[in-house]
């Protein structure tokens, strides 16, 4: 016995009503009708009861798809724009890892699809180097190949290196990382420093004497070469971090309340005003004015940016977007201040498109983002 779909039965009944049914079709319809009382009932209702043109018209009265069709067209246009951007992006950035992002909001998740256009791009390797004589050199991936800045100072891919530099008097260089930039620095003692967007480091071209002192504004991850005779010191305002050999991250942005030091391995000591603390691996200090607190943390959250990721754990939208705004060089404003207090957990590959990230946030149906140039507006979902 053939299984009929409801569409086939509807066609057969329609043909019957139209008197255009063929002999074979009619036999099929009758056979189906006689299979069950239920089928017969439906057959009678649809065929023998008089469904007239008036009834048809009345059924469809008050249904207007116009508005919905137009909304759908807008969505199609948006997705077409995004597709063309995607293609360009893929062509241009074939070597850049694919963006992966997963976000989990505690309470619920929705399904709405959102698409947006953006002028907002992830940062790139770029910086300005100020030499001791005041000369400015622009460093960045535009230089493509390697660059010899001066004697023993050279740039290899994303790293500025000082090798075998000896100077008689102390000469300072300063590297400035703009918003939307990052750079790696390898100092004459072998210490490696990853500098994040909107940061600045002043350091001697070569270290002399019994300490190695550098001056940081912003955020950096330090991998300090061990030298017990000459401790390495990072100075931020009146906050001094002394280390022998270790890996740690410092975040000291002038527009943020705390100077945060997170220790991955080794040992550091921190002096801030009259406060003093020693950190062990996995610990973090937060200093605000003369207050200092030390706590155990998941260091991943604070150092992941060095490994091409941003990780957020139950952080407010305000903190998350503030951090990202440095890297993506974007501005954020809020329709309602308290939207910034909503907390999210998740991670983002730092070379991925910001819209991917914002779309993921939107699927949680708490906030909506509108992007206009480099501005992101946050409004209630």
């Amino acid at each position, binding site marked *: 016995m053939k299984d009929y779909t409801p*569409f086939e039965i509807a066609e057969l009944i329609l043909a019957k009503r139209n008197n255009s049914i063929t002999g074979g079709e009619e036999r099929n319809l009758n056979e189906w009708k006689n299979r069950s009382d239920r089928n017969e009932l439906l057959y009678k209702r649809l065929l023998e009861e008089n469904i007239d043109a008036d009834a048809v018209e009345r059924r469809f009265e008050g249904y207007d798809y116009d508005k919905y069709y137009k909304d759908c067209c807008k*969505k199609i246009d948006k997705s077409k724009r995004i597709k063309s951007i995607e293609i360009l992006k893929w062509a241009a950035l074939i070597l850049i890892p694919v963006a992966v992002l997963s976000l989990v909001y505690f309470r619920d998740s929705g399904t709405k*699809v959102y698409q947006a256009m953006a002028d907002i791009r992830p940062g790139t390797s770029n910086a300005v180097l100020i030499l001791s004589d005041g000369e400015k050199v622009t460093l960045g991936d535009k230089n493509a190949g390697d660059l010899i800045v001066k004697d023993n100072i050279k740039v290899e891919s994303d790293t500025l290196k000082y090798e075998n530099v000896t100077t008689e008097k102390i000469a300072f260089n300063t590297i400035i990382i703009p918003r939307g930039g990052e750079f790696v620095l390898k100092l004459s003692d072998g210490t490696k420093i990853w500098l994040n967007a909107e940061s600045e480091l002043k350091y001697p071209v070569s270290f002399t004497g019994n300490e190695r002192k550098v001056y940081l504004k912003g955020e950096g991850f330090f991998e300090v070469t061990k030298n017990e005779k000459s401790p390495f010191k990072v100075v931020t305002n009146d906050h001094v971090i002394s280390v022998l050999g270790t890996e740690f991250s410092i975040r000291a942005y002038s527009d943020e309340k705390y100077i945060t030091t997170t220790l991955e391995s080794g040992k550091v000591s921190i002096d801030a005003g009259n406060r003093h603390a020693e950190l062990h691996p996995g610990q973090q200090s937060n200093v605000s004015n003369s207050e200092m607190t030390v706590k155990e943390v998941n260091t991943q959250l604070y150092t992941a940016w060095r490994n091409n990721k941003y990780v957020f754990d139950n952080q407010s939208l305000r903190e998350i977007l503030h951090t990202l705004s440095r890297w993506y060089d974007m501005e954020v404003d809020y329709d309602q201040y308290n939207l910034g207090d909503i907390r999210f957990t998740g991670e983002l590959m730092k070379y991925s498109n910001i819209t991917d990230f914002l779309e993921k946030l939107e699927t949680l149906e708490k906030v909506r983002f509108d992007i206009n140039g480099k501005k992101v507006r946050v409004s209630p979902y």
Partner: protein
Amino acid sequence: MKFSDVHIGKLSKGDKRAFLLLYDNYFASLTIFAQNFGLSQYESEDIVQETFCRLNSNYNLPDNLSAFKSYLYTAVRNKSLNYIRDEKRRRTNDSVFLDLQDDLLIFDKIVENELYRQMHLLVNELPPQCRNIFQRVLKGDSSEKIANDLNLSVETIKTQRKKAKKLLREKYSLVYRSLYTFL
């Protein structure tokens, strides 16, 4: 014009003409279908809208019309089910709703829905002026009133009514049986 097999693939590519036909042929019908589950017209429209918008860039659509229709009805049914479950809401209309799990009942509803849908399409296939006049005749307007409203002569209305009658008799036969009492 009818939405047909050839338009399905065009939906995936975001072809607006294909979407227009889809909305024209199916939007109201599927909205009415979703209301069988006890949703309001507004809620049903949202569910159908979401289903339709997702067709753009969906490259896994069936390529024949029957399977595609089946896909649409199933998607609307599932979305309605999810909506009711997620919202844990009372149905807008408690007295008229289908047991979402009762496949036989849903089979009947789809047959009925499809029949009405096809019949409605037939009306829409009338030439525009013919259809306009026909719809007014259905409302019970006299030729004089229609002529006045449309700023046409009574003679024109009468000619159009004859034309509609002829077309419907030739083309649509018994579908509009009762129409002959009007025309």
